[in-house]
């Protein structure tokens, strides 16, 4: 997983509530057995028409947002299914940070496993950021994970909260599995205890 420290890039406004994972990456693209190559299909139904041509009105089909590294959306971003194809598609497109007033739990969690930073900010601040980046000239934002701030050419910096352990893993690009495998002795001792106390789980 790539480290996340400081990101400066174009932020695309997506003023929609409850953006679900079916919208982010529709099911016909879940048949892949790889993690890569999904960026082309990110927001497929909003981005392309029935003939697979770009819809000019969709934000990611417009300059400068075609090169967006940051997405700004409304409440409950990433609701619905657990598909990690959603963060994979964002990442493959080039988006490393999503800013919203709230996120769905599973999607939020999946972001951290892929080096994507989900930033939660109060609704009014997200609204202001969205208005700000709507003018293409102001579309560049900087997200600073060590300092926990978001800033633009005029506004900011705005502070955001993040769980310290998740921040640590993202900053260092740590592999969760390697971290947990360091605790193998504790896992073994848990299992030994459970075999005695809840024997039916091991029959």
């Amino acid at each position, binding site marked *: 997983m790539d480290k996340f420290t400081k990101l400066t890039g174009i932020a695309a406004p997506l003023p929609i509530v409850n953006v679900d994972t079916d919208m982010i990456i529709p*099911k016909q693209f879940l048949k892949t057995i790889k993690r890569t190559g999904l960026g082309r299909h990110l927001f497929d139904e909003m981005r392309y028409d029935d003939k697979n041509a770009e819809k000019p009105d969709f934000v990611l089909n417009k300059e400068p947002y075609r090169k967006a590294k940051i997405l700004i959306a409304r409440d409950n971003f990433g609701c619905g299914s657990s598909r990690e194809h959603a963060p994979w598609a964002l990442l493959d497109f080039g988006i490393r940070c999503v800013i919203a007033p709230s996120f769905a739990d599973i999607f939020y969690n999946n972001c951290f496993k892929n080096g994507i930073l989900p930033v939660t900010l109060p609704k009014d601040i997200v609204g202001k950021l969205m208005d700000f980046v709507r003018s293409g000239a102001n579309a560049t934002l900087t997200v600073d994970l060590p300092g926990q701030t978001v800033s633009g050419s005029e506004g900011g910096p705005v502070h955001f909260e993040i769980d310290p352990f998740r921040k640590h893993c993202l900053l260092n690009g740590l592999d969760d599995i390697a971290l947990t495998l360091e605790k193998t002795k504790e896992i073994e001792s848990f299992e030994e205890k459970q075999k005695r106390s809840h024997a039916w789980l091991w029959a």
Partner: protein
Amino acid sequence: MAEPRTLFDKIWQSHLVHVQEDGTCVLYIDRHLIHEVTSPQAFEGLRAAGRRVRRPKATLAVADHNVPTANRAHGIEDPESRLQIETLGANCAEFAIPYFDMHDIRQGIVHIIGPEQGLTQPGMTIVCGDSHTSTHGAFGSLAFGIGTSEVEHVLATQTLIQQPAKNMRISVEGELPFGVTPKDVVLAIIGKIGTAGGTGHVIEYAGSTIRSLSMEGRMTICNMSIEAGARAGLIAPDETTFEYVKGRPYAPKAGAFEQAAAFWKTLPSDPGASFHREVSLMASEIAPQVTWGTSPQDVLPITGEVPHPENERDEGKRHAMERALAYMGLAPGTKLRDVSIDAVFIGSCTNARIEDLRAAAAVAKGRKVAHGVRAMVVPGSGLVREQAEAEGLHEIFRSAGFDWREPGCSMCLAMNADRLAPGERCASTSNRNFEGRQGRGGRTHLMSPQMAVAAAVTGHLTDVRELL
């Protein structure tokens, strides 16, 4: 005296392997269910790192999302679907994981077969790379959906790194009114608390209505916890639970069962246990429900009308309503029962168990699917299908004009060939009415199996109480 604890607290605390100073936990996972869509990249990761599967026998695999529901003997036509399912089989063989392939009578939707096989038991932690894993919480187990990286983490370590959730209790009291089902109860709950109402929480469903439900009804309720934003939903295990589990293939055998049941009886929330949030509903106030929009929270009683966005004061919500109505092709003020439909889907991990099919067949019996409507019934598993056929339900469906199919996720998410055409409107017993969920441009109205049959036979959304 120890602090009173909730059912969730008890399961959580009894599965802690390690707690970091900042509260991050390593949680032990008792059972891991896998399917073809969210597992291939996890196995690939294991291979790349040279890691093994820690407990293959605590893992069960099944192909469900992509499988064809007709002409299965001919194999899978779509090359991508076929490759994904073959990959699952090969991965299970390589890592010695038990696997029900699509020709196994036990094959079915992963959340239907876990309980059916007795693999789902009270007090367990159960995960699966699928958000509807919340279904298993009906047994008083802590069950939630995970992403593929976490699937890999569980395969390698039999644990997950987690932050504790908050406790929420939703109490439903009283007898279910005539024509009202568990699906209507959970849709009414989502309508009340919203699609993000349970975010960050585990929901415990309580109250006399919930206690009186069968296990299958309880599964329907817990299944849609994720549509209320909660990763998991739970119901206290009781005699109904024990009776259901007993004697199933993966259930504890005689002797061990009594020992297990004695433990299971200690699980329900203690009197006085505190919840971060409490919500209550009266069953008597719930009517048959139907969704009108593109979020499960866009739900109303069938007696209602399509709402007017201009009455919504919140700008974000108003835009969402306008967008939903444009997508759904509905005008504000339209009576829901005047909305005509093109297709009917009876199936999914929400509503494809035997009791669902019995209830649907009871309405279908002696009636005909309306002209121009295509309707299908997709049983949740091979064993549900076999049971339904033993009871003659398939004949009732077929003579009414329904297509009787083989088990799988099917048109709930339309990954296989079962899908809506653009603009087609479907009465569906599934769990999500998102844009494009049942096929690009398809329009979904969620409802109970009885309501879906009522719509099938009249050709429009219908109050099933008029047909009972």
